[in-house]
């Protein structure tokens, strides 16, 4: 897969991967901005309001009908955070020209549609339609409230909020409900113009077209993109140590039957000069998959939970262990999760375990090259970090990680927050 990265307009970069492998091409646009409580909700709301209608296709029915015509092209708002950078924009995918029944070409039309959505919204008197803003605002508030519907995701986010309560990272990608409620259409329009003019912009393309052709299509479509003084001074603060001497503990009670236990850790001093390969090998060995210590011991050997896994947030320097347990097993599960980390710190990592961890990791990384959505996320994160390491290169580096390097990461990690979402056992088994 040939990768070309270039600045196609001031503060606007395109990462283009050329490949004939896929049936559809993907094209995304992301505005990058500093994550903060005041603006996060406004930023998050913008792509949803823009998706409601453009000057040319004034409502959702018209936009969707146009996308249907382009052989079911998809253009969806996308809101993420990479460390403490909030990324808002659109992700689009559309059929590769070669596979269309009538020899049509969709790339230029898709770039046009993306530009139309981002730059030429349906407005009245130069302002967003109050109706669209109010309705998307209510939906965003509900989206934030709805995180409780996914018990596991809710517990993870709550652990981060508690652990990082003094940091911007506590702010979720959509911001918070209170700030959403204060959004008004006039101020939002103004904010949109600022965001558009000042944000660094990342385009990503993956498909059969040459990078030059993609750049040309984008430059043509985005000719009227306003560019002011670009805010390049954005980044993530990394806290190395725990906030208090011993981990803080939060217990929250909800009407659910299975408890969710999440342990939050700082990656610690290894974030001084983070080395991605050992970090990932450590995570794979500790709780990354079914060969990990957490799976083998907390789940399989002791049957303490239905799942137990760990995940890294390398931009912010966090490790999170997530598990689903019975409330009665709280102490035992917590102790075992910490005991497995201690075992790693003592160097208890067999060759079999290390090899299995590396194999699983390398396989995951090679598979990234086979899925456009994964590639898009991977290269967006790399762009934010200023990294240029391809998934396959990282996989190769992981092969050479030694036991000592993985153990060193385990020793650097510090537990900072223990969060427990406790079931009160009231959720009944309906219909039984």
């Amino acid at each position: 897969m040939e990768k070309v990265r270039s600045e196609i307009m001031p503060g606007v970069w395109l990462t283009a991967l050329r490949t004939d492998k896929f049936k559809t091409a993907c094209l995304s646009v992301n505005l990058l901005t500093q994550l903060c409580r005041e603006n996060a909700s406004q930023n998050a709301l913008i792509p949803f309001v823009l998706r409601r209608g453009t000057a040319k296709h004034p409502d959702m029915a018209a936009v969707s009908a146009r996308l249907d015509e382009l052989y079911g092209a998809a253009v969806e708002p996308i809101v993420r955070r990479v460390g403490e950078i909030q990324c808002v924009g659109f992700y689009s995918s559309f059929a590769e020209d070669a596979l269309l029944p009538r020899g049509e070409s969709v790339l230029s039309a898709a770039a046009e549609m993306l530009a139309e959505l981002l730059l030429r919204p349906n407005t009245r008197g130069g302002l967003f339609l109050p109706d669209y803003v109010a309705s998307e605002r209510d939906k965003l508030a509900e989206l934030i409230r709805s995180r409780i519907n996914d018990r596991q995701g809710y517990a993870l986010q709550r652990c981060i909020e508690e652990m990082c309560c003094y940091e911007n990272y506590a702010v979720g990608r959509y911001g918070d409900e209170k700030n959403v409620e204060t959004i008004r259409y006039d101020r939002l329009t103004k904010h949109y113009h600022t965001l558009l003019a000042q944000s660094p912009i990342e385009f990503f393309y993956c498909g059969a077209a040459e990078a030059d052709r993609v750049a040309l299509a984008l430059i043509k479509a985005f000719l009227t993109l306003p560019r002011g003084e670009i805010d390049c001074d954005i980044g993530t603060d990394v806290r190395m140590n725990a906030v208090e001497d011993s981990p803080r503990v939060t217990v929250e009670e909800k009407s659910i039957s299975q408890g969710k236990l999440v342990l939050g850790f700082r990656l610690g001093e290894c974030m001084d000069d983070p080395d991605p390969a050992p970090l990932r090998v450590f995570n794979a060995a500790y709780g990354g998959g079914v060969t990990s210590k957490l799976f083998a011991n907390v789940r399989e050997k002791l049957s303490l939970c239905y799942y137990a896994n760990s995940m890294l947030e390398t931009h912010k320097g966090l490790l999170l262990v997530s598990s689903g347990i019975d409330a009665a097993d709280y102490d035992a599960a917590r102790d075992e999760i910490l005991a497995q980390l201690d075992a790693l710190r003592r160097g208890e990592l067999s060759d079999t375990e290390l090899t299995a961890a590396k194999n699983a990791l390398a396989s995951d990384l090679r598979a990234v090259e086979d899925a456009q959505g994964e590639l898009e996320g991977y290269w967006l994160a790399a762009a934010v970090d200023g990294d240029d390491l391809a998934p396959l290169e990282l996989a190769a580096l992981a092969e050479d990680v030694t036991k000592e390097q993985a153990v060193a990461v385990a020793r650097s990690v510090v537990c900072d927050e223990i969060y427990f979402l406790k079931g009160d056992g009231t959720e009944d088994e309906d219909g039984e």
Partner: protein
Amino acid sequence: MENKRFDNIGENLYTAKLPDGLTLNVAAKPGYATSFAAFAANYGGAMRRFSTGGGWVDTPAGVAHFLEHKMFDMPDGDNALNVLSANGADPNAYTSAGMTCYYFESTRDFYDNLEMLLRFVSTPYFTAESVKKEQGIIGQEISMTEDSPGFAVYINLMKLLYAAHPIRDAVAGTQQSIARITPEILYSCHKVFYNPSNMALCAAGDIDPEKVRDIALRVLPAEPGPVPKADFGPPEGELPLEKRSETAMELSAPQFLIGAKVPPAPGGDALLRQKLIGQLALRLLCGTSSDFYTRLYAQGLLTRDFDYEIDYAAGTATVVIGGESARPDQALAAFSDAVARAARDGLKKADFDRAVRASYGARLRGLEDFDSLCSSLADGVFGGYCSLDAFAMLQRVTPEECAAYIRDYLGPDRLALSVITPRKE
């Protein structure tokens, strides 16, 4: 092996029926690092009463799913999940009402992993002790599932629609039903359902189809077995058992599903065609560009969390439409209006053509996801058609067929509504 090229969509499929009765489908995917294999049994949670020619056998709810968990235990004490993972593969399994599927994805040693997959799925090994332990693990899984609003809204809908069919019950069973499972039950169900004649092996990747076949020939039992018959109870009527249910859970906003029973086409191309007609009909009625969806979205009665599908399983076909809504009953009324309009006025040619184009693009996207590709190939094997024929067939479906589908199956009497509301503080 038979080679079927689909040049219009750039696909190349190899198929074979082996002497032991196994059906093989291999999609060639040049340039991919990832390879995928799914080994599926035509056996799901709804197949609780069955026969292989002798008398009828009854089993507790949850056996198919329990069996899926226990298959990973191997006689040498190892666990197949660990062995495959240690070899760099990403293995998993699922059990639905109509199918049990074991699969893995790997970027290396595909043939070793495939051999391992076929070996462990065809080697039963259960002990009283391991069954007891699994009852604890699955018990946890059942309570986790019961906490999920998405599961509750779905299973409640099935209980509204179906009077007696076992599809009304959770695939995993209940704490009580799984307590009755013994090693003997597992051995006998494995013997009945996991014989190659009742299974399909579907693979995709930059792999050699002949080698896949050779491994299957070498590893699997050589003798074909009888294809079991399942009894799903008395025939279901056209109408739902009940029209509406409502339950409260820890939740932020109401979730709802509208459902209807459809008499499934018996199989072969007629079945594929019915699936395509149904999907187009639903796209026209409630797809993202439909009048129903865009109007209710603008009114705040629907959100982005909205979807529709037709589930085919265990001799049933069920239209399932829904997501989140502050007013599910208004959503149902609006849907009924859309149905009535389409039934009265027919479908506009321009709308229909656009739906066909959109469906074509959406299907292309599905070919990139090996998991969904292989599971639709397996559905095709058990349903007697080739899922890749959908692209050509799509161009031949008519607006009249879609209008008839809407008129015949989605009238107001046939719809049921399942609602989960937020628990009051």
